[in-house]
């Protein structure tokens, strides 16, 4: 038996079979099904697939920041022991990585050098050591050119970027200037945030294998294999059917592996040239130099309110940076559009064209950096108005989407704030600079979290076997998010199978096309595709049992209806039941405003002698629809909150203003939080179902945890010290001068 089930989200789905399943595993904090493989080192990541006769490729990055390549002197290294060849293709090599979800080739052509570290060649050898040595010795001649490298010097030349489907570049309503002039209380302040790197623990890696029919299999570390395969096919000039991407395990992504990066194209071209498989793993410095960064930002915040604290003016004007001719701009104001309402608003995005590496999506593009400014500005306004920050947010809670007046599908922001305040002990927060514990100044901060919810087209195939096992197959990925586990829980709940009897296969474009992992849409989208497939399986089981699907109870591998109990494997029959489900976005995302919400609370200590900031505790309260697995969902949130610690206190990707070269292109100098930087973190989820989002009623959480988290810490630093630092990260040198005399 087989069947298909497609749903476009044009209407709400008031009921979900997940609420009536008898298996009782959905939502439970079950251990990850892939856990034993991961902890024993037997999960296979991109560079670890055992491929015979593989040649080692080491990438060569440009040593100038702007100009043209005159020559790549392959003969300079061909004679070295073990070296096979040097391959470059000035037309075809990817100059920039591609952005996530695009189905076109990335920007190609590396004869022109557009930024320091641009990948210009790949050296192939019989061993990694020989290839690395030759890559260091390879002679590349450049004709250097002048470039644009200094953000501060060039920000006067910012331009309005082309339209984006995420957020309008410019938006204004009413008259913000006069509203600011007439406001009872107002602030007009500018925040800056630096470039950041996703710094996933697994560097970008590809093994390219061509077969005798001209088909390519690329073992890669990619978040969205379905569109990545299309990007790679376009880049190589081959049919999309000829490219298969395999990515069962991915060592973190955080946006950096949404689109294909230069190593994939270089490995594929080298493998075709050599006629043998090629493995290319980026060095950590190349991940920094030549993949993708979160843009630096400069954000002017103008907030004006009447005497009661009600916003009359809301301005968020942002400057970010990217390469010339790249369409992406950091949508800093995306959350500002619906977080709060005001009759007079201006939310602008302008961009400075620089010859720095590509900027693109990193965990919560828009909200992650935008809310560092917005949520601190709200704190500043609260201070100026003499209103508690939580009360200020309550006063400004909008009734509907301020842009479109569409109703919110769900919105529990105030409940998140209130529950968090009670749990955290917010009432014990003192006035700024008044609480001290020995040589530590103590403060508390709060920030709201908002993150837009997205649904992407996604398909999955579910096979129920004669033996009563379910096999879920989809080109979805698990980048640490828990996809393997939640998809097994959804299938197990709907088909009445213990989780041990569900096997989930991901990360292969031979499986049905899927949304992939990005934008926090993975669980909602791929989970819904599995749900829909299982819905069809249930109908066929009911048919085999000659009852209505509603009359059927499925539990522990048995179907119960009409006073009969039959094994579902038996009902599946000798050929089993194969069902395919496909979810697509529809009108619901227009007629309702869909987002997930939360509240961050942080307590910090600031050392009165050194200015060092230590986060003492953090609490996140979140409402994001149905929580599919309480354990993995919590982990997603603490991971996001820790990205917030990094953004607030440690992460700062520094570009040399003379040539754009990254000064701190390694993990010793680019400071991601370490274990000792992270306190115990509490996470609370509010009960919620979003019937407008998808049939599983779940929304994204992976990015909600970072949105606003850093602002809560910065607000806590202010509360501890009375020092307001508006230049992230809040390193001790920026705080020290404002501390009281010893």
């Amino acid at each position, binding site marked *: 038996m087989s069947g298909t089930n497609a749903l476009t989200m044009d209407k709400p789905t008031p009921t979900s079979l997940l609420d009536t399943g008898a298996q009782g595993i959905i939502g439970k904090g079950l251990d*990850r099904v892939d856990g034993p493989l*991961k902890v024993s080192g037997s999960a296979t990541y991109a560079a670890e697939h055992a491929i015979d006769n593989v040649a080692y490729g080491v990438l060569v990055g440009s040593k100038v920041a702007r100009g043209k390549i005159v020559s790549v002197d392959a003969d300079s290294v061909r004679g070295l022991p073990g070296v096979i060849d040097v391959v470059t293709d000035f037309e075809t090599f990817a100059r920039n990585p591609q952005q996530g979800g695009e189905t076109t080739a990335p920007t190609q052509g590396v004869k022109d050098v557009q930024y320091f570290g641009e990948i210009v060649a790949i050296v192939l050898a019989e061993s*990694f050591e020989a290839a690395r040595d030759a890559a260091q010795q390879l002679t590349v001649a450049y004709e250097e050119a002048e470039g644009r490298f200094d953000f501060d010097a060039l920000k006067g030349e910012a331009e309005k970027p082309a339209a984006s489907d995420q957020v309008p570049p410019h938006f204004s309503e009413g008259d913000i200037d006069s509203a600011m002039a007439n406001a009872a209380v107002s602030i007009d302040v500018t925040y800056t945030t630096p470039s950041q790197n996703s710094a996933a623990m697994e560097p970008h890696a590809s093994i390219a294998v061509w077969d005798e029919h001209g088909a390519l299999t690329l073992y890669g570390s990619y978040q969205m294999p379905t569109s990545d395969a299309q990007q790679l096919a376009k880049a190589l000039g081959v049919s999309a059917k000829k490219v298969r991407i395999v990515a069962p395990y991915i060592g973190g*992504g955080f946006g950096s592996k949404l689109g294909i990066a230069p190593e994939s194209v270089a490995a594929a071209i080298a493998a075709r040239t050599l006629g043998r498989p090629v493995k290319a793993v980026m060095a950590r410095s190349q991940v920094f130099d030549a993949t993708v960064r979160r843009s630096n930002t400069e954000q002017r915040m103008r907030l004006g309110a009447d005497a009661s604290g009600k916003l009359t003016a809301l301005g968020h004007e942002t400057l970010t940076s990217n390469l010339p001719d790249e369409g992406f701009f950091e949508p800093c104001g995306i959350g500002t559009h619906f977080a709060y309402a005001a009759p007079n608003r201006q939310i602008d995005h302008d961009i400075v064209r620089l010859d720095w590496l590509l900027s693109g999506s990193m965990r919560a593009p828009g909200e992650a950096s935008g809310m560092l400014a917005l949520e601190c500005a709200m704190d500043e306004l609260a201070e100026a108005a003499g209103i508690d920050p939580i009360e200020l947010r309550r006063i400004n809670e909008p009734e509907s989407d301020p842009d479109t007046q569409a109703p919110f599908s769900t919105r529990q922001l105030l409940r998140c704030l209130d529950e968090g305040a009670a749990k955290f002990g917010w009432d014990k927060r003192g006035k700024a600079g008044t609480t001290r514990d020995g040589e530590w100044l103590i403060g508390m901060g709060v920030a709201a979290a908002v993150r837009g919810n997205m649904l992407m087209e996604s398909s999955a195939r579910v096979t129920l076997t004669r033996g009563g096992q379910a096999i879920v197959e989809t080109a979805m990925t698990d980048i640490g998010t828990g996809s393997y586990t939640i998809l097994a829980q959804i299938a197990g709940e709907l088909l009445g199978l213990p989780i041990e009897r569900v096997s989930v296969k991901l990360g292969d474009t031979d499986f049905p096309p899927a949304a992939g992992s990005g934008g926090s849409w993975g669980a909602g989208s791929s989970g819904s595709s599995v749900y829909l497939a299982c819905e069809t399986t249930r109908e066929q089981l009911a048919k085999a049992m000659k009852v209505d699907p509603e009359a059927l109870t499925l539990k522990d591998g048995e179907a119960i209806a009409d006073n009969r109990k039959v094994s579902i494997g038996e009902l599946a029959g000798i050929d089993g039941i194969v069902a395919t489900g496909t979810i697509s976005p529809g009108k619901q995302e227009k007629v309702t405003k869909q987002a997930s919400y939360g509240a961050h609370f942080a307590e910090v200590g600031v050392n009165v002698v050194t200015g060092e900031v230590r986060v003492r505790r953090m609490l996140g309260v979140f409402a994001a629809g149905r929580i599919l697995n309480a*354990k993995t969902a919590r982990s997603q949130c603490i*991971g996001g909150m820790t990205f917030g610690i990094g953004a607030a206190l440690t992460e700062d990707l520094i570009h040399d203003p003379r040539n754009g070269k990254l000064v701190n292109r*390694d993990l010793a100098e680019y400071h991601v939080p*370490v274990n000792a930087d992270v306190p115990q973190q509490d996470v609370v989820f509010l009960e919620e179902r979003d019937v407008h989002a998808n049939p599983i009623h779940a929304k994204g959480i992976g990015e909600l945890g970072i949105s606003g988290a850093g602002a809560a810490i910065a607000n806590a630093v202010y509360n501890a010290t009375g020092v307001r630092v508006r230049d992230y990260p809040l390193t001790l040198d920026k705080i020290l001068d404002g501390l009281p005399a010893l």
Partner: protein
Amino acid sequence: MHFTINGTVHEAEPDIRASLLDVLREHVGLTGTKKGCDRGQCGACTILVNGRRINSCLTLAVMHQDDDILTIEGIGSADNLHPLQAAFVKHDGYQCGYCTPGQICSAVGMLDEVKKGWASHVSADLDSVTLDGPEISERMSGNLCRCSAYPNIVDAISEVAGA
């Protein structure tokens, strides 16, 4: 050359420039040990050599012919987990899993250091170490986890250490 890895002798003829990490991954086929930075900055390649935890990317393989090398594959397998591995699963002490073998090897070495009475930067009493949360966090800070399972890693190690 021969290398004694997880109690088994492996023959390999590595390049003299090869790190122990690359020999494990590319010559011996033990890919459980991960390469995150190749510079001793992330800890993903942590293994145990003669019982002590080291970054295997920072040492040349040719230096280890007579050493006792223990990698994650020798600590436990997917169907026969070491208590620390089981605790990482129970407490969700990972997300993407890439730093995890290094975290676990590091934890094995770290617990042994505590057993020997070695103090750390945060030890209140240099002569008598109590393995509380801050001690574990301090001693595990050479192993980065960008997914940031840190609080869960501390919980997992605490459970095993307290047992």
